[in-house]
């Protein structure tokens, strides 16, 4: 069997059907949940820095939140290599837009909603060729024509929606109920961050593929995109179950 390099360039060329050697048939290196919430003054995303290799916690410093341009932030769960491909393509798109603008010195046209829509078209197109980019994406930022923040979701088959609260993967089961309870339109930045940290902590307890080392990122009109350095979350193990003797002869059976 001979190895082949792809034709390069845009992976979105409709004419080419992928061969078995090229398409993602199952994810191998994967990221888990990404959370997003709007607050008064911007929009905030959270994700851990783990990329798992099956059941193994292999890459503990995998960055899953990334700035696409000065107004757009994306976070991804799912296959990490497909996320890197998406980032590459979006970065090229940003550069292309900048260079082909009327002037290099103009304010570049950067818009989170447009990025979200581009990703929708890309993901749906790949789905039609049975060659998906195996990711769940959250797009956050600001768009033209509105001073309100934007928060949207795209999945590997091109489903999209926008909301004030978004979570992918395990987060959609465990974090969404918590976020729904605490969300208010006038949420302050500190409260939003505490809410996301709390949800990431719960996910670390209850998701086998999660880590307690996380990143938080926000988009604000004044400062653009800011992504924190990764840091460790504190965890609580003092619940009563911990110390009681369950598996002893007079216990209840060991769990």
């Amino acid at each position, binding site marked *: 069997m001979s190895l082949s390099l792809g034709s390069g360039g845009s992976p979105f060329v409709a004419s080419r059907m992928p061969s078995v050697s090229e398409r993602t048939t199952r994810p191998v290196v994967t990221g888990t949940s990404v959370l997003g919430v709007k607050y008064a003054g911007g929009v905030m995303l959270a994700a851990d820095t783990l990329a798992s290799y099956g059941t*193994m916690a292999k890459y503990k410093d995998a960055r899953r939140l990334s700035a696409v341009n000065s107004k757009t932030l994306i976070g991804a769960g799912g296959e990490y290599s497909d996320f890197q491909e998406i980032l590459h393509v979006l970065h090229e798109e940003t550069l292309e837009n900048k260079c082909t603008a009327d002037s290099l010195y103009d304010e570049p046209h950067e818009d989170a909603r447009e990025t979200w829509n581009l990703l929708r078209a890309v993901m749906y197109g790949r789905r039609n060729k049975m060659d998906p980019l195996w990711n769940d994406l959250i797009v956050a930022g600001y768009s033209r024509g509105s001073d309100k923040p934007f928060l949207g979701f795209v999945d590997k088959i091109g489903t999209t929606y926008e909301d004030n609260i978004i979570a992918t993967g395990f987060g959609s089961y465990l974090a969404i109920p918590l976020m729904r309870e605490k969300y208010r339109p006038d949420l302050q930045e500190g409260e939003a961050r505490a809410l996301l940290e709390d949800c990431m902590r719960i996910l670390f307890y209850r998701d086998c593929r999660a880590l307690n080392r996380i990143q938080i990122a926000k988009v604000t009109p004044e400062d653009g995109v800011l992504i924190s350095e990764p840091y460790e979350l504190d965890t609580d193990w003092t619940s009563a179950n911990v110390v009681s003797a369950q598996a002893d002869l007079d216990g209840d059976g060991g*769990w």
Partner: protein
Amino acid sequence: ELLSSHKKETQEAPHKYKQTRTHTRTHTHAHIHKKQHKIMRGSDDYDGRLKKGELSSGTTIMALSFEGGVILGADSRVSTGTYVASRTSDKIAQLHDTIWCCRSGSAADTQALTEYVRHFLAQQSIETGRPPLVKTAAHMMRRLCYENKGFLLAGVIVAGWDPVHGGSVYNVPIGGTCIKMPYALGGSGSGYIYGLVDAAYAENESPSKEEGLKLVHSSVAHAMARDGGSGGIIRTVTVTQDGNVKQVILGNQLPYGPSGL
């Protein structure tokens, strides 16, 4: 009129199929179903012996013997697929006064096995008037695991102290082998720490109780840092002539944290 003729046709056709092709049809159907099922399963279901949704003690377990006794250690994560059903479970079960076992694999299977062995050991101890040997407990476990190997998914480590042989560690992996060893590792997380434990033993062939405990804590912590099926807190039981000492290391006080820093 059209409808009635259509009805007649459909009534005849299945009858014909039934006579000649039923057997092959069901056979292929089952074969396809099984294959699809296998593809959809994750990589951590031990070749399909865990039923869908069954609880697995994903796990890292170990036991080592030192001069005067044994130390058993385990993590505390029980998972259903990728959901952590319990983050504080107790996987070190007591079989008799100074005989314990570490459980890994299907939580249901190992709990049932533990209850059977407890029962047989208690019975024998009453009949003979003596505390049972660790060897006896290990071999009872082996009998059950071996003779029911098609139905079970259980890897256990039986360890303890008895007045005849002192401290002993027996590994009873899936399939029902029974091997006495100076130290034993088991569970999905054990693969990540073979190097660590082997190297520690190469340096120090007969650890003391304190050195042994430190090794158990450090090894289980390292396995928890890399295995998705292991996590939570570290439970240990130190068994000597004087009895049992149970200890817990909480998840935020681990010697090596899950994020590796």
